[in-house]
């Protein structure tokens, strides 16, 4: 296929203007007095959504756009679809374009699906005869044969969306712009859509796809671009671009968790100095049962021994907050003691985001007998494989006496996030393998892979 350009985005900048209300009132007045409304409607505040974007998408190419929310993906989509115009630069489109940005935009709730198909089709640029010819396909694809004469207001959101998708895809464009619409709809319909997109691909149509589904990008796209704060951060091979993006997401999460943790520790630490024995932990965190109180972060204890900090270390000893299921992790507790303490126990407790205890242990239940604790040092718990399901976890750490009198108890001040390749559920991932006997055959074998692949499709 000749490398013709289907979509050319050249030096495109898009600024959104925010005109303050007070400013507006003045303009209305002076506009009518001075007659220069157009000039006066100029921005008080400017937000740059896209900043000098250059992209060329070839005919027949499937191009993925990824990036965090608010990065400018949708703005770029709108520019390509032609619903907005760039502030600077040019967008040149070669071919008939259909945009699946908002499915069913323009459906009128009071009238039937049938009438809406016609109206929507005409809005998308079809003639009446063309719609007539495709009508049955549209309805069949949307699986709405029974309901096509019911008013659209009675449709479920899934039906609504299916019909919208079906109309838009039957416009049979040269260029198809898809914006995150695959996020809605049930599994079966998503597969159907992906099949349809695959068919488009085979027929040499150009597809521009915006999605948070990294798997979709990797599987479907010929090239991808990662957009961040209005700029192209990476462009090219989708696998490479997705990796760079995911790394960046990891870093963002890391810094966010660090920031939140700092805040929590700081606020719990206030008043801990004089507020000793404000609250006594009823039981050591090793006992998982009988925890009726809501799980709230906090800190208490008489400070005979102090916990100065907690870090999560990976295999190489780098501190972080984001781990993958199966990674090695070490929890490092830094402690200090002013006067020697003879009766001491170190303990940890892991809680998931629902406050459910996932695991707890301490040195006492594991038969360590304390003799003397003096000066300062670290207590480390090494886990060769972090067998937790995906999610955010909160950590209780404590140093207390054997009868449970807390010296320093940190409740939920530290947290880390676990990404899992799998959608498995529960409080922990139990080590396991599958074995089958009898007439079982698999197209493909599953199994644990060490590849780090945060399950981003589920976030936001």
């Amino acid at each position: 296929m000749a490398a013709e350009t289907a979509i050319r985005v050249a030096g495109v900048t898009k600024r959104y203007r925010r005109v303050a209300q007070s400013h507006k009132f003045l303009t209305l007045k002076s506009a009518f007095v001075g007659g220069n409304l157009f000039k006066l409607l100029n921005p008080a505040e400017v937000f740059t959504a896209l900043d000098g974007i250059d992209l060329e998408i070839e005919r027949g190419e499937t191009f993925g756009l990824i990036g965090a929310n608010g990065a400018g993906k949708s703005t770029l989509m709108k520019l390509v679809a032609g619903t907005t115009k760039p502030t600077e630069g040019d967008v040149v489109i070669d071919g008939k374009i259909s945009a699946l940005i908002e499915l069913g935009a323009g459906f009128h709730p009071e009238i039937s699906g049938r009438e809406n198909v016609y109206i929507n089709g005409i809005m998308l640029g079809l003639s009446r005869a063309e719609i007539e010819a495709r009508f049955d396909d549209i309805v069949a694809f949307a699986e709405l044969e029974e309901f096509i004469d019911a008013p659209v207001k009675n449709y479920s959101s899934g039906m609504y969306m299916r019909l919208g998708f079906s109309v838009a895809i039957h416009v049979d464009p040269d260029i198809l712009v898809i914006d995150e619409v695959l996020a809605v709809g049930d599994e079966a319909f998503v597969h159907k859509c992906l099949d349809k997109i695959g068919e488009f691909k085979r027929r040499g149509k150009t597809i521009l796809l915006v999605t948070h589904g990294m798997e979709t990008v990797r599987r479907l796209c010929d090239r991808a671009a990662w957009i961040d704060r209005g700029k192209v951060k990476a462009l090219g091979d989708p696998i490479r671009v997705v990796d760079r993006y995911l790394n960046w997401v990891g870093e963002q999460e890391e810094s966010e968790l660090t920031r939140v943790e700092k805040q929590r520790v700081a606020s719990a630490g206030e008043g801990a100095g004089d507020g000793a024995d404000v609250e006594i932990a009823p039981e050591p965190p090793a006992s998982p049962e009988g925890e009726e109180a809501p799980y709230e972060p906090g800190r208490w204890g008489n400070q005979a021994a102090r916990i100065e900090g907690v870090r999560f270390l990976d295999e190489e000893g780098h501190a972080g907050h984001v781990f993958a299921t199966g990674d090695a992790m070490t929890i490092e507790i830094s402690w200090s003691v002013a006067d020697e303490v003879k009766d001491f126990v170190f303990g940890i407790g892991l809680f998931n985001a629902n406050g459910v205890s996932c695991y707890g242990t301490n040195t006492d239940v594991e038969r360590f007998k304390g003799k003397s604790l003096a000066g300062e040092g670290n207590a480390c718990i090494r886990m060769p494989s972090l067998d937790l399901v995906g999610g955010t976890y909160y950590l209780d750490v404590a140093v207390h006496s054997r009868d449970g009198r807390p010296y320093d108890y940190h409740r939920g001040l530290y947290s880390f996030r676990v990404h899992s390749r799998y959608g498995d559920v529960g409080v922990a991932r139990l080590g396991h393998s599958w074995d089958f006997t009898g007439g079982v055959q698999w197209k493909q074998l599953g199994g644990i892979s060490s590849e780090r692949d945060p399950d981003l499709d589920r976030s936001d």
Partner: protein
Amino acid sequence: MWHSLSRLLQHRLLIRTLVVRELTARYRGSMLGFLWTFIHPLMLLGVYTFVFTYVIDPFRGDGASPYALFLFCGLLPWTWFSSALAEGANSLLMGGNLIKKIIFPAEVLPTVSVIHNGVNFVLGLPIYFAFWFWFKPESVSIHLLWLPLVIAVQVLFTLGLAFFLAALTVHYRDVKDLLANILTLWFFGSPVIYSYTYLKSEKPDGLGTKLLELNPMTHIIEAYHTSMFTGEMLHWRRFGVTAIVAVLTFIVGYYFFDRLRDSFVEEV
């Protein structure tokens, strides 16, 4: 601007479809359905006839009898004008997701407001004619042929204002609240319930008379009165000036709309 304007013609099919949609959707779910299109003006006519015959006596003179018919003649175009403006001013906001989400020519929306209210007007005409032929057959004349011209002038004037107001409403939501009151004032400032001819003969130098002279709707309604109530020749000079004003209103309104077009997507 001329280029964009020609696009309006290209979107005939879209406009027609949307007009049909508005008409079908409006009375969907009501028992009388489309009949409301006819019942509405008749009921309104009944109310006005009662009020202005038995409660208040407006300035009407002998030229305006039978009064109910006279009222009907002015009320039909006025209802079209005022509902088209009220709806048209709001049309971009209501159709916001169309402009934002699909490639959609914004000028279609106010146009649809004007046309679909015009359909109600046109459907009301046969009823009016039936009454007219029955109660005032002597005044049916060749001057009825001016009617299409009068309608055309009204369409241009209404479209121009609708474009202007729609674009303005996007930036200043206050317009639609203001508009409701302005339309009430405008209604009383147009010779719908009273006769302009009679007013002019009774108080030729009155302030009201002078002000009414400046109102384009005065001359448009008067043109309806002459062509389809009294069956007289149009007042050429007044109507000619009004036609020019209508064309200018259309051009200015559309120009204003066209200039602000790019801001709609962001502000809607």
